[in-house]
Structure formats: C-alpha cells, structure tokens
C-alpha cells in the first residue's frame, strides 16, 4: 500500500473516533454525518500524518508515556517557578537570549523539543536555525551564557526521550 493511502486511512479513523467521542449519539443520521465529514477530512488533509515508513515498536509507546509524565512534572515546576517570581516583591528576573545546540534532525522532533522547552521552567523558544541545529532560547533567569552549559541545562532532559521516540 502506498504511504499516502495509509496516512489517509489513519486520519479517517482518528477523525471518526473523535466524532463519536464528542457526540456520543448512536443514531443513524449522526453516524452518517460523521462518516461523511471524516471522509472529507481524510481526502483534504489526510497525507500529512504519516510521513515515513517505520516499524512499530512497543518501546516507542513506553518512551512516549515517560515523555508525557516528564513533561507534566516539568510544567508543574515551571508554574511554581513563575508564580514565585511574580509574587516576589522585587521581581528577581535576569532575562536574556541564549543559544543551545541539538542533535535532533527531523521536523516533528524539533517541533516537540521547541514546544517542550517553551512549557518548561523559565525558557521560551524564539527561533530555530535548522541547518546548524541551533535553538535560540529566551531565558528568564540566566544561569549560564555559554552554549555548552546552556544545552546541558535546557535541552538534555528531553532530547534523549525525543530521540528514542522520533528518530
């Protein structure tokens, strides 16, 4: 089977399951409308979900769950950190933009890394230089300005898991 057809079928099932979950009505008109809209969605935007041919591994699911748990823990820490800064009467900020280097190459992995960095303590992705694999990060409370230490402090906690999931 061609890759695009496979991707379209996956999108169709995803859309149909979502429709059933948000309506929870098992009448024939409702199911038919859902079917029609799922087919339209699969035809219009179906080819972007699966891009490469890769084997399905159980390991990847375990790593994904570990990644989600880690992301939630880091988000909780991020929120407490920002809350502390905001409540503090003197506003202890030391902002600036630093560079970090990454080993990831795929678009999806880079997107997830940038999103994770934005959601974690005190850091916000400003731009990505894809050719040199550099991310520009706005840091609210700078600890280190050189590229090596910054990479260790910001990027490394997610990079390993994302490498396992996407690469």
């Amino acid at each position: 089977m061609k890759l695009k057809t496979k991707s379209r079928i996956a999108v169709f099932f995803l859309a149909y399951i979502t429709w059933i979950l948000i309506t929870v009505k098992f009448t024939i008109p409702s199911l038919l409308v859902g079917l029609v809209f799922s087919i339209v969605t699969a035809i219009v935007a179906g080819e972007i979900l699966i891009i490469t041919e890769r084997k399905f591994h159980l390991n990847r699911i375990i790593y994904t769950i570990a990644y989600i748990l880690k992301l939630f823990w880091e988000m909780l820490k991020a929120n407490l950190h920002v809350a502390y800064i905001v409540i503090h009467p003197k506003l202890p900020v030391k902002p600036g933009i630093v560079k970090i280097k990454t080993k990831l190459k795929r678009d999806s992995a880079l997107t997830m890394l940038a999103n994770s960095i934005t959601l974690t303590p005190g850091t916000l992705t400003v731009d990505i230089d894809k050719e040199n694999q550099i991310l520009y990060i706005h840091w609210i409370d700078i600890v280190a300005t050189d590229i090596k230490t910054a990479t260790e402090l910001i990027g490394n906690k997610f990079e390993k898991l994302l490498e396992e999931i996407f690469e």
Partner: protein
Amino acid sequence: MPNNQIVGYIFICLGILFDFFGVLGLVRLPDVYNRLQAATKCVTFGSAGILIGVFIYSGFTPTGFKSILCAIFVLLTSPVSAHAIARAAHRARIKLADETIIDKYEEDKELKEG
C-alpha cells in the same frame, strides 16, 4: 456531593489560581518576552487544569470528552503561538528590558545580514 464533583472543583480552583498568577505576571514583568513566559506557562497549565476539572466533574459524557479535546489543543497550540509572537517581536526590533544580560540572537542576526 459525589466525590468526583469535589475533585473536579479542586482542579478547577487550582486552574483559576494558576491563571491568576499568569495574569499577575502579564501586568508586573518588564518586557514582551518575559510577559510571554508568564502568559504561556501559567495560562496553559491553568486552562488545561480547568478543562480537566470539567472532565472529572462531568465524567464520560459529551461535555467531558469535549473538554479533554480542548485541553489537548490548548497544550499543543499555545507554545506555538508564543514562539510566533516572540519571533515577530524580535524581528520588529522591540527592545528587551533593561535587566537583560545577553542577546545571542541579535548578534547572529547581524552577522547574517551584514
């Protein structure tokens, strides 16, 4: 009151608390980038908390599933919009706050353009 409603109310209250911190940060912090930090983190977590609270409150009903879907979309889209706003602000040459120590992005951009 059933247990799940009490837990739902606790989640909703926590979400509102974090939303409050985010708004406070939006008012108090010095420049665009710092304000974005407070706005994205706290508002994402707070809004997701409220939506998960609604899911726990109403259980496996259409309302509950819709709120879970909304939580997923908020978690996926809000960092992207923050990134877009930060990049646009930097390209429009909006100055960073006086407390700023270093701006590597500006240095690299000048090298590229020069």
